[in-house]
């Protein structure tokens, strides 16, 4: 018979205000096996843990139940407390009477009743607990960073600086990401390329960093400390070692009609291309979809002009398999498609553009060489209108429910830069709210208004109507003056919402990392573990986790790196002992369990057994506890009940069911 202690936490008033903790103690004490029951203000506090320690020692407890907050919060705390008192940490069960009880119920009587039942279930379960020992697994001292934007680069640099090998996998032909497309950055207006390029160079030159560009993660298996990842290196059609980056091929390529992704489709590029001048690696790729040689077999100009003989049309995709201890996701963002927002005439007029397109127009290396001009007729604009929150803060299906966070600031930046360089251009910004939390942010926005004379109008735009004269008639509202406004503009710039990169769902699925309804990766805890995924060994860097600007991204990238380093620094990891176990006397050896095991943790051996006096050789299942992650799929697949899950055994769960339905 177990000797069970029950500890009921008040959690200040969080629990005690709705649950009569004394009553819970009283009722729990009546349960079979319970030899000790008490309550305390804060069980997780040092004093609370000391009470647990004392009770275990004094009353020789063999199992404890803590009625408190979610086990996701403090299970480890109480397990460690038990361990210090000499009790096996797996002899601890938590009854979640906060998140699942006191916080959601208002009626004290009801909540108390429920808390008692939850306590009984936990007591019933712990009565059947058995001591478990954690195993050990190794840590591969190498990290993978998925995404080569500023988040990925910073994370990789920080991990590499700590002395660990890092691989960056970048989907496009060059690292640099969104930041490389930006002209200037807020709130200091320094040139984006000037601060990013040195980091790109540093990453590519770092002896611990290996960069796979034009590559994608194809498959992930394994678990924390021991991931195995297949990386598809897409055929570049250019030999990376031979290419000198002279650029002649791109000049001579006769097929120059492909929309230039880097310039957001505002101009075109050649079929063999590097996305931008400072690309790393400075080795072009052939876009096979648009290359005449690949489409028709005729051409081959690039191969002819390449002095280095680097063009290789017969290159094939290559799969590289690598092992990693930690994985950092830094897949970044894109702006949403605006074809659902045609009240702003985005698909009807080339002079209605997104802010990211404006970024390219204002960039010296962009499609207009940095001259502010209309795409339709290359005329310099006289009047520009910016519209905020296009697709952000939308409750409807076409937009995003969240605030994209960066738009207020970059719009102020754009407005300021335009007014600075072209003082005769009138700039009007339609806004709902101007949100500028951040160091020197509001000051920045105020400067745009006060020093640069940007006209901020509180109100939205209802329609942008392209006029016969080429002007854009903007119909908006000024909520302060309570007037509808009709103004002609030469260009309209839309602050389109940002959204996580489209590929992130695929990657999250491979990593079994959870993802929210907006496709942002979920953090392990929104406040306390913001850079970790709930999946052990997977960390989050940058906008893949939620909208953020460059300084925040860099800060999070560093934090993710530290978390990864903390993992890589360990030689061994303790494994979860709640693994499946097969009863050799019950096992039929039918292999049904092995068929559903996602980890290949089940194998079969033939061994002589003694089944109540019958000695015979049997074929039965064996679980490799280092591989088993404890999902329990096998336990249900097993018809004979031979396979059971330690810590969540059939009898334990049934005991909980019985206690709840009693």
């Amino acid at each position: 018979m177990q000797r069970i202690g029950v500890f009921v936490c008040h959690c200040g008033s969080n629990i005690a205000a709705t649950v009569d903790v004394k009553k819970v103690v009283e009722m729990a004490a009546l349960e079979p096996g319970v030899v000790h029951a008490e309550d305390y203000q804060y069980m997780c506090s040092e004093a609370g843990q000391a009470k647990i320690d004392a009770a275990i020692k004094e009353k020789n407890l063999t199992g404890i139940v803590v009625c408190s907050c979610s086990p996701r919060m403090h299970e480890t705390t109480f397990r460690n407390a038990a361990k210090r008192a000499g009790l096996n940490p797996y002899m601890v069960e938590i009854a979640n009477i906060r998140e699942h009880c006191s916080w959601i119920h208002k009626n004290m009587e009801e909540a108390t009743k429920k808390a008692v039942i939850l306590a009984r279930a936990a007591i019933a379960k712990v009565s059947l607990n058995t001591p478990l020992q954690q195993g050990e697994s190794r840590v591969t001292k190498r990290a993978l960073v998925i995404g080569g934007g500023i988040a990925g680069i910073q994370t990789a640099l920080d991990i590499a600086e700590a002395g660990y090998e890092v691989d960056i996998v970048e989907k496009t032909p060059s690292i640099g990401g969104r930041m490389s497309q930006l002209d200037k950055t807020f709130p200091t207006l320094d040139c984006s390329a000037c601060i990013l390029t040195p980091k790109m160079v540093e990453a590519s030159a770092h002896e611990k960093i290996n960069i796979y560009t034009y590559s994608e993660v194809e498959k992930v298996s394994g678990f924390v400390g021991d991931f195995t990842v297949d990386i598809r290196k897409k055929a570049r059609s250019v030999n990376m070692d031979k290419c000198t980056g002279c650029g002649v091929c791109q000049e001579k390529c006769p097929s120059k009609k492909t929309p230039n992704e880097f310039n957001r489709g505002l101009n075109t590029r050649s079929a063999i291309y590097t996305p931008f001048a400072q690309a790393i690696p400075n080795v072009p790729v052939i876009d096979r979809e648009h290359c005449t040689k690949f489409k028709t077999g005729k051409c081959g100009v690039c191969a002819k002009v390449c002095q280095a003989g680097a063009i290789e049309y017969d290159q094939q995709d290559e799969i590289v398999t690598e092992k990693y201890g930690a994985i950092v996701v830094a897949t970044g963002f894109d702006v949403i498609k605006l074809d659902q927002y045609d009240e702003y005439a985005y698909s009807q007029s080339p002079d209605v553009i997104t802010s990211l397109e404006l970024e390219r127009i204002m960039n010296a290396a962009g499609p207009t060489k940095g001259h502010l001009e209309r795409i339709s007729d290359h005329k310099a604009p006289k009047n520009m209108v910016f519209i905020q929150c296009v697709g952000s803060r939308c409750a409807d299906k076409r937009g995003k429910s969240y605030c994209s966070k960066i738009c207020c600031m970059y719009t102020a930046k754009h407005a300021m830069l335009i007014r600075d360089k072209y003082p005769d251009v009138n700039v009007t910004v339609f806004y709902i709210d101007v949100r500028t939390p951040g160091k020197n942010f509001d000051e920045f926005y105020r400067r745009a208004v006060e020093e640069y004379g940007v006209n901020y109008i509180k109100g939205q735009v209802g329609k942008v109507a392209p006029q016969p004269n080429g002007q854009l008639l903007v119909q908006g509202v000024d909520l302060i003056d309570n007037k509808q406004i009709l103004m002609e503009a030469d260009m309209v710039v839309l602050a389109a919402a940002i959204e996580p990169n489209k590929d992130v769902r695929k990657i999250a699925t491979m990593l079994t990392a959870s993802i929210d309804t907006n496709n942002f990766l979920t953090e392990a805890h929104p406040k306390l573990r913001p850079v970790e995924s709930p999946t052990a060994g997977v960390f989050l860097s940058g906008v893949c986790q939620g909208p953020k600007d460059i300084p925040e991204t860099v800060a999070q990238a560093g934090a993710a790196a530290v978390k990864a380093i903390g993992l890589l620094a360990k030689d061994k990891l303790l494994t979860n002992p709640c693994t499946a176990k097969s009863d050799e006397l019950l096992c039929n050896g039918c292999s049904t369990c092995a068929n559903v095991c996602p980890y290949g943790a089940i194998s079969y051996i033939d061994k002589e057994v003694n089944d109540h006096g019958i000695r015979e050789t049997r074929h039965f299942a064996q679980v490799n506890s280092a591989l088993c992650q404890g999902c329990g799929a096998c336990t249900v697949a097993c018809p004979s009940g031979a396979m059971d899950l330690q810590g969540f055994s059939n009898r334990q769960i049934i005991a909980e069911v019985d206690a709840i339905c009693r």
Partner: protein
Amino acid sequence: MSIEKTNEFRPKIVAFCCNWCSYAGADLAGSSRLGYPADVKIIRVPCSCRVNPMFILRAFEKGADGVILCGCHPGDCHYTTGNYYARRRMTLLFSMLDYLGVENGRTRVEWVSAAEGVKFSTTMNEFVEKIHSLGKNVRLEDLRCRN
């Protein structure tokens, strides 16, 4: 819209929640103070695929009026594939219960992610309401085991 009526049928409802998504979703419902009736009691399991039909029948045998299973959304299982197996198992089991004349509606599977506190709460409210409309589970209960 929670059902807080007294002096009437209070159903017993067992909710199996996977540790990674739905249990966390239930925690989020808690920390967001999104109420649902106290009739729902949650049992934590590592994955929806850990839930044996035996557990569900056992609950009914012991007097449960409804059993709901919550797991990660298909494609998002922490163990990659667990919820796919659970989905097939539960589909077949529910179909069998329906075939035996047990009111469908007493059993339910819902995919609730760690971020879906609201969904958890609305699902539980809906489910309790459904069980209320079905009334006491007389068809599957083992009278002998009732207190």
